[in-house]
């Protein structure tokens, strides 16, 4: 932890007048950093171990405990190429993303104001917080059967459960952050003649933005899990394609192991893209954070 300056320090023998060096491009910096190569090599080793472990039964006759039952990465790639052609695959993407977004956006629309109201108004909080806190620890998926009973269609129950998962998360995040806004900001605004609404829109709301986005990011992860589980449990819902969860479950039922992994990777990519989208949106909305 001693010397945290970059390893590219000018050696001792060089002259004392420091010439300004040109700024290196990001690509150059990435390629020349040892961290990058270490990470890459780790991933490559991981892939190789996986490949050998998966094929070990074939090649050596011994079956490695966990990797042995998995399909090899090369087989997975083959299946991926094959599956990407089929429109059903992309329809699954659409279905899952649609479900995720429905529940998620609804949760944000209702959750952010609710959370802010809880934070800002003491009476509101005293009244609503207890029932909220009692219901919150119940995992969203535990609501699935109740939702299936209550809502007329499968789709609506899935939407409800996804909504719940993201709702609790965003409210708790907003509440935590809004209450810890430095009181000096509020006082400064008040002393400059801000009205209650001004205080809210110009101090509390921007101050809570970071946690709104943190809550959104976490909520997104939970939403994906809920959607997938719901798709797997409720058999994919109506329509020809039931989403990525259904895709995986189907592949499992059909015994196509490579496709399971293709599905997993697809979902991973989808999840990563959603989080990245939230992060980008956050950077756009909160330009002042870029300084950090």
């Amino acid at each position, binding site marked *: 932890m001693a010397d945290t300056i970059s390893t590219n320090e000018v050696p001792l023998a060089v002259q004392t007048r420091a010439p300004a060096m040109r700024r290196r491009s990001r690509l150059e910096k990435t390629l020349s950093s040892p961290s990058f190569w270490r990470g890459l090599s*780790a991933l490559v080793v991981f892939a190789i171990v996986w490949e050998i472990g998966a094929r070990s039964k074939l090649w050596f006759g011994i079956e490695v405990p966990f990797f042995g039952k998995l399909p090899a990465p090369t087989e997975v790639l083959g299946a991926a190429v094959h599956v990407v052609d089929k429109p059903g695959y992309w329809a699954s993407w659409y279905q899952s993303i649609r479900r995720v977004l429905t529940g998620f956006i609804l949760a944000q629309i209702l959750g952010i104001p609710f959370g802010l109201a809880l934070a800002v108004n003491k009476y509101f909080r005293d009244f609503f*917080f207890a029932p909220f806190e009692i219901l919150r620890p119940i*995992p969203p998926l535990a609501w699935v059967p109740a939702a299936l009973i209550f809502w007329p269609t499968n789709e609506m129950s899935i939407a409800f459960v996804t909504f719940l998962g993201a709702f609790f998360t965003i409210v708790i995040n907003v509440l935590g952050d809004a209450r810890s806004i430095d009181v000096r900001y509020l006082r400064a605004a008040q002393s400059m003649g801000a009205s209650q609404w001004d205080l809210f829109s110009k101090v509390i709301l921007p101050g809570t933005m970071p946690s709104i986005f943190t809550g959104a990011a976490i909520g997104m992860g939970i939403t994906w*899990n809920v959607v997938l589980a719901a798709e797997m449990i409720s058999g994919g819902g109506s329509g020809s394609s039931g989403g990525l969860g259904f895709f995986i479950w189907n592949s499992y039922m059909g015994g196509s192991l490579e496709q399971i992994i293709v599905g*997993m990777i697809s979902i991973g990519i989808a999840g990563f893209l959603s989080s990245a989208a939230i992060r980008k949106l956050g950077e756009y909305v909160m330009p002042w954070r870029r300084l950090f």
Partner: protein
Amino acid sequence: MSAIAPSLARPTAPTGLMMLRHRIIKTFSSSGPYLMLLGIFTWLFFYWLFCEALSLPRFEKLPGPITVLSDWLSRDPAQGMSIFVREYYVHIFVSCRRILIAFLLATAVGVPLGLFMGWSKVVKDYTFPILETLRPIPIMAWVPLAILMFSGYETPVIFLATLASLFATTLNTMLGVQSIDESYFRAAGCLGSSRWEIFRHVVVPGALPFIFTGLQISMGVAWFSLVAAEMVSGDFGLGYLILSSYVNSVTVPMVIGMLTLGFVGWFSSALVRLLGDRLMQWRVRALATQGR
């Protein structure tokens, strides 16, 4: 010492009991707890109103609070599940045992791993990319794979909960180490500590607050994954109870299961938080001094 009125008793530090009494009086003299009770009562009232009294269209299919409570507390429950039924405790025990194993396993692996990842850039360079590649894949996507890789019911379920916990614990621990102010490392260094001593006396205690935040998150995540896994493939356990009650059209055990799940989930998180408070006495006392 006051020289003004000798008859005034010499001020002594308030005893714990006096403080407690003072706090209780203060709490009950404000509107807080009354509103809270009102909130809970209102919620229960509407729950009862919709599901039992008025029997509104879809609400009537769900059991109301009185139905649930009367079964839950009766020696001879109509739908077969109550606190007097042995099976109830079997479900609770099975779920808790799985959570305990998953949580302990994830902590035993995740905390040291996270510590080393935060402590040594080299370790982080090799392990972080692999972690970050696997992390976006939602836990539910692992379900078919888990069933394939591990035999029986127990192991896949525990595997899923452990995996989910592991990501949360490792990441938060690593962040915890990274959040430690550089000055503490330098101070320890110039006081003559070896690298190992710095690890023991600076890294571990310094990361503890983040570690415990991570553990609480990981506990929540473990329950989430466990319930989902139990629903998809399991025998016994609260998640299984909920789903099977739904399948068998007995809705009261379903609600009992949900509420029990909520309580046990909350209780386990509270235990973790309490443990954290015990281990981090310095933090509790410092916050108290600041009046929080």
